[in-house]
Structure formats: structure tokens, C-alpha cells
């Protein structure tokens, strides 16, 4: 009843092609953004900002990047953690070695470095496909891990290999409170989501999807696999690299290569698969599922007043979390975004289902 398009006539091409053609969607998204930007900073606590919202947003950005590669272009990658590390260490090196640069420039440069590395490791995708490509990107992961752990130059010769980010200063303004950090990350993630959404709707996104669906057919209709695949690697790695820089600078503050090990790659891939392949929304839902749910599960017994040992709580967390992953994949293999879409379809007919 509420969610109906009846009466919304599109009279121009522009209105038909806009980002959210349905009025209700538009209102919802604008409302959500307004809530996130204006209301949340007043409502949430420090813990919520620092331990939940900030990591959730940053990993959403990384999942978004990976989703472009895996979901839209169909190139399975297990090197996401490595590309995040490239972003983090590139940002660190720019910030420490060229202190004149503004941090926003540093983050963008870090994204560009990650994009470059992503393209280099994306070259094999022109010859190998599917699981074999996954293995090749796994090599990227291990190589990058190795490079940052072993080559002392990257860590500015820090003895322990753990580096620590300089203060977050943007155009002379020092970002330090949890609210400010949250707003910073939220702004970057919103812009990235907008860019990603538009890229995937445009010609370039269509060439990715054509390559994903059937690369031979795509080639026949005139899409160059070289450009399509490598741009996907570049754009994806750019986002992932930005996310890596944010993860290191805003969330951890000080980190070692272990923060970006192969487990991070798997975690991001699970986010994309559970959230929904080829969906911007799915990246956010997947990140929420993987980041927030374990924390809720971990705190549930204490909040309910059930006296359990710490070890038991974390065992239960692992079991329930695992079971929920299996449950969701059985109920809806196409991810949480698909569940959302089904919900929307149902709402359009409600309350008069045929």
C-alpha cells in the first residue's frame, strides 16, 4: 500500500534513468543518509562509533570494491586483504615521507597505488578463469603479505614491523573524536557507493556484467576483455585500497601485516557472497552480517544475564554464526540483497497479493 509506484509517471529520459526511479526508494535513501549524518552522531555512544559503526563502514567499502570485481565482473579474487594492505602501507609511506601532502590526497594516492597493483595482479585474469584465477590472486595475497613483512623500507625500518598512523589532519583540521572519525568514514563511503552505483549502471558496468555472464559473447559484441577486466580490477582495488588506508588510519591506528592476512580476504569474500553478488546494497548487508553479528552474539549471554564462561561464549558465538551462514545460504543462495528485493516485490502487491 505504501510501497507503490502508481501515479509516478516518467515524462523525461532523465527522470526514467535517475538513480532511484521509485519515489519511495528515493525518500528512504535520503532519509537514511540524513539519519546517518545528522541523527546518529547525537544518539550513538563511543563504543558504537569506535567498535561497530566505523569498522562496519570501512569493511563495507572494501566489500563494495570486491563486489565490483566478483559480483559485477565475475573475477573471483582472494587477494583483497593484500590490496587493502597495499592501500594501508601506501598511505603510511606517503604520510610519513611526504608530510606536506594532505591526508585526503594521501588516501586517494593510496587508492591509486592499490589500483595499480590490482591491475598488475589482474593481468593473469586475461588467460585464466574461475577457480584458477582465485588461486592466482591468492598468490598476490601471499606475495603482498610477504613484501610488507620483509621489506623494511615499506615500514620505514620499524624494528617490530608494526607501523602507526600519524594524526588524522584534513586541510589543517584535526579529526580525532569518534563522531568525527565516523562522519569522515561515512562521507567517504557514501561518495564511494554513489560512484560505484553509477559506474555499474553505465557503459563500463555493462561491459563488466557482459564479461561476467559470458566472456566469449561479450567479445563477439565488441567488448574488449582486456579493458573490461582490467578496469574492474583497477576500480575494485581502488576502493579496497581506500578501505585499507581507512582501516589502518582510522580504525586500528597502528597495525602489522597480520591485520591484512588471508583471513581478511576470506572474510570479505564471505561478506560479498552472503550479502549478494552484484549488488551495492548487498555489500553493506554482508558487512553488517559479518562484522556486527558476532559482536552481538558475543555480548548476548552477558546481557541476558546467563552466566557462561568466556570460552563457552566464544564457542557459542562461532557455532551460531556458522549455523546462520549456512541457514542464510540455504534459504537464499543469492544473498541478503535478494531477500531484500523479494521483500520489496511483496510490498508492492501488499495488501492485495494475487
Amino acid at each position, binding site marked *: 500500500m505504501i510501497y507503490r509506484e502508481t501515479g509516478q509517471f516518467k515524462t523525461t529520459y532523465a527522470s526514467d534513468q535517475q538513480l532511484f526511479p521509485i519515489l519511495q526508494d528515493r525518500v528512504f535513501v535520503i532519509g537514511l543518509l540524513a539519519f546517518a549524518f545528522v541523527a546518529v552522531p547525537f*544518539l*550513538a*555512544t*563511543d*563504543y*558504537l562509533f*569506535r*567498535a*561497530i559503526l566505523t*569498522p562496519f563502514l570501512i569493511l563495507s567499502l572494501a566489500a563494495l570494491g570486491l563486489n565490483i570485481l566478483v559480483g559485477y565482473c565475475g573475477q573471483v579474487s582472494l587477494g583483497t586483504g593484500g590490496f587493502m594492505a597495499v592501500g594501508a602501507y601506501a598511505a603510511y609511506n606517503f604520510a*610519513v615521507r611526504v608530510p606536506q601532502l594532505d591526508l585526503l590526497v594521501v588516501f586517494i594516492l593510496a587508492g591509486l597505488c592499490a589500483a595499480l597493483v590490482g591491475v598488475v595482479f589482474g593481468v593473469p585474469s586475461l588467460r585464466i578463469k574461475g577457480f584458477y584465477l582465485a588461486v592466482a590472486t591468492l598468490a598476490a595475497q601471499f606475495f603482498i603479505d610477504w613484501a610488507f*613483512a620483509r621489506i623494511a623500507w615499506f615500514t620505514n625500518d620499524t*624494528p*617490530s*614491523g*608494526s607501523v*602507526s*598512523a*600519524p*594524526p588524522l589532519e584534513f586541510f589543517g583540521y584535526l579529526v*580525532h573524536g569518534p563522531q568525527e572519525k565516523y562522519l569522515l568514514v561515512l562521507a567517504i563511503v557514501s561518495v564511494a557507493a554513489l560512484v560505484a552505483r553509477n559506474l555499474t549502471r553505465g557503459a563500463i558496468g555493462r561491459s563488466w556484467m557482459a564479461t561476467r555472464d559470458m566472456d566469449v559473447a561479450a567479445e563477439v559484441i565488441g567488448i574488449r576483455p582486456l579493458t573490461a577486466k582490467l578496469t574492474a580490477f583497477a576500480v575494485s582495488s581502488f576502493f579496497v585500497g581506500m578501505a585499507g588506508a581507512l582501516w589502518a588510519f582510522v*580504525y*586500528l*591506528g*597502528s*597495525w*602489522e601485516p*597480520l*591485520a591484512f592476512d588471508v583471513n581478511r580476504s576470506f572474510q570479505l569474500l564471505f561478506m560479498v557472497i552472503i550479502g549478494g553478488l552484484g549488488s551495492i546494497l548487498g555489500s553493506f548487508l554482508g558487512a553488517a552480517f559479518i562484522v556486527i553479528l558476532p*559482536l*552481538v552474539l*558475543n*555480548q*548476548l549471554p552477558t*546481557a*541476558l544475564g546467563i552466566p557462561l*564462561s*568466556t*570460552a563457552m*561464549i*566464544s*564457542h557459542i558465538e*562461532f557455532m551460531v554464526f556458522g549455523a546462520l551462514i549456512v541457514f542464510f545460504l540455504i534459504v537464499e543462495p543469492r544473498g541478503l540483497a535478494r531477500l531484500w528485493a523479494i521483500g520489496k516485490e511483496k510490498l508492492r502487491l501488499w495488501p492485495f497479493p494475487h
Partner: protein
Amino acid sequence: MKRDLRIKAAAVALAVAGTFGVALEALAQSNEIFVPVLVYRTGPYAPNGVPWADGFVDYLKLVNARDGGVNGVKIAYEECETGYATDRGVECYERLKSKHPVAFSPLSTGITYALTDKVYGDHIVLITAGYGRADSVDGAVFKWNFPMLGTYWDGADILVQHVKKKGSLKGKKIALVYHDSPYGKEPIPVLEELAKKEGFELVKLPVTAPGVEQKATWLQIRQQRPDYVFVWGWGVMNSTALKEAIAVSYPRGQIYGVWWSAAEPDVVPAEMAAKGYNGLALGHSAEKTNPIHKDMVKYLYDKGQGTAKSKDEIGSVLYNRGMLSAILTVESIRSAQKKYGNRVVTGDEVQWGAEHLTIDATRIKALGVDGMMQPVKTSCADHGGVHMARIHTWDGGEWSYTSDWYKSESNVLNPMIKASAEKYAAEKKITPADCGKAS
């Protein structure tokens, strides 16, 4: 039945709200000192994490049960599972921060690194007994870090001193088998410096975490035949290293572990074959019969209040270390109370307390840990307080001391600590405090 369900649903909603921290702030209790306990009771590091956590929590319980708290103020505590992962550790820190903790003991060098940046703003003390950043001994820069009992740089220096006693190191070869993390890399700069000074060759052999795969590492050792092997491992890595050493029949007597690689969970899996393996003892070994251990049994385990599964665990190496960490935390609180009065102290006050901590021989005796630690005296210039250790050796059934006390060479370490701390201060834009005029 239906109402039951509704109550449950409400409880779940409450829990979710709790996670999101909407209504928790007001619940913080103000008449107890809150000590958070970051632990890992699951995962590949659990065999070592569990006894440490049990020792830590048992001591806090003992202080409440036996003494009625610290000078009459009860201690509240809460465990949070980190799994030795840095991001989970940061989450735990943020979660427990709202309860106004005075001191954290993260039991992970990686988490310590991440928290070091945060405690400046939050005014919470980090007591890292036997781990953490070695350069944080410099209290002028690292105001909130207290790497008490000994740092990894002390450990590396003392190990070299010990093997040097057996003959000049010139032309010798020492292999360092280390956990590939900030923890394992921490001793490298000191060993490199000493290699130059003493003329030995240092072979660095990293082991990827968690360290269950070390075949290649020990084959290299078999090829290169180093004169000594130093093990800087943690969790399953230690017992695996010993098993691999046995497999390539490297003499156990020439292997030296740091204090985190020389406890029961490390040698017991290898059983008799680990006989002769040496390790640094961080002041204490597996003492079981001190007055404090008797108190643990009397006040906690006999009443069924103990944290460990059975009282046999009391007095294992890592149990003792967890207990000593808790002792240092409580003594820092006590030291703060001496200046600020016997009440609930704040993070700032405990920082003062930890910086002016004096635990002399009489106090050590009164604490019931005689022979388990050296006198500690901290100051702004030295947040470590003590830089001594000795060696203990596994005889197949138990650990026993096999050396005298060593003190680390401050003329080697101090310039390095200063340089490293200055670099950190420059990167973070921190103005070092003037230790001369500090109160």
C-alpha cells in the same frame, strides 16, 4: 509459554540495545575499581592464554575475598575474549572502556601496539608485564605504557649474555626462530646490534602465525647448524618448534626460549624428548608452594571459587605470570591510593601510581611471592622498573633454575630505547614530558 517467549524477545532486544550501547552508560558502578581482563581462552593460543587468564582473575578474586578489596575498595572485573586478534582486542578495549577501567593488560604485543595510540586520549594505563613495546620503557614519551618486569630487548640481551658465558661468540652462529608478528620481531634490533658487537652471525627464521608448520624452518637449521637457537614463539608454535627440533635432532640444550616459550604447555607435548630445553624465566618459574598459592587454595579453590579447572593448575609458569600481572596492577592502584586516598581511583591517578611504584623485598615477601620477582622501582625515565631475568631448564618433569640473575646492559639498550621513542614521538607529534621536573 507465550509470555515466556515475549520476555525472551524483550531480553534479546535489550541485549541488542546493550551492544549498541544505548543505555549502558548509567550502569557503571562507582564504588568499585574496574579492572578489565583481555583474555584468549579459544583458538591456537588458548593453551597458553588460559593459565595466564586464570592466574590474573584468581588474584583479583583473592584480593576481594581475602583482603576485602584494595584498602577496602572492591575490585570489579570482566573478561573479554580477543583470540589474540588485534581487531577483536581493539573492540574489547572499546567495549570495556565505558566502565571506567584504570588499567588494561592486553597480553598481546600486537594489541598493545594498537592500544598505545588510544590510551593517550583515554587516560588508561597499559601494564604489559613481560611483553609490549620495548621502547615504552621511556616514560617521557610513553606516558601510559608500563612494560614492567622485563622487555623483549632485556630478554634478548640477557640470552646473549648467557650464551656468551659458555665461550666467546666471535664467529658463532645464532638462529632466531620467531613468530612473524610484532611480538616475534621485537628482539631483532637488539640481536642485530649485539651481533655486530660480539661478532656472531644472526640467522633470522620467521614462522608464519600460528606456527603449526615449521618443517622448512628446522630443515634450514639442520643445514646451517647454528650454535644456538633462540625461540620467540607463542601458543602452538612453541611445542611445534620443540617437536621439529627433536625430528631434526638438534640438541635441546642449545635451544633457548624467551619467557613466553618456556612454560608447561610448550614442553609437555614433547614430553621427555624436550629434556634439556632452556628458557628465560621472567623472575619466576613454576613455584607452587609460596604463601600466595596456599592462599589461593584456602580462599578460592577450597570454596569452589577458583577460576582454573582444578587446583593443580595453580603455580604453573603462565598462571604465575598472570598472577604477577594482576599483582602489579593492584599494587599500582595501591600506590595511587597512597597519594590520593583510599577510594576509587581514576586512570590518571593510577598512572601516577604506576610511575611511582616501589615493590621492595619486604613487600614482595608480604605479597607472598618471595623468590618470584625482583624488587621493582619505576620512575618517569624507567617505566620498566626491573630489567633482570634468569634461565630455567626443563628436566623432563619440571622446570628448575640453572643460572644466576642477569641484568640487561643498559649502555647497549638505553640509546636504542631513546632513539626508538624519539622516532615514535616525532611520528605522532607528541612532546616528550620532562622527567626531571615531573612530580
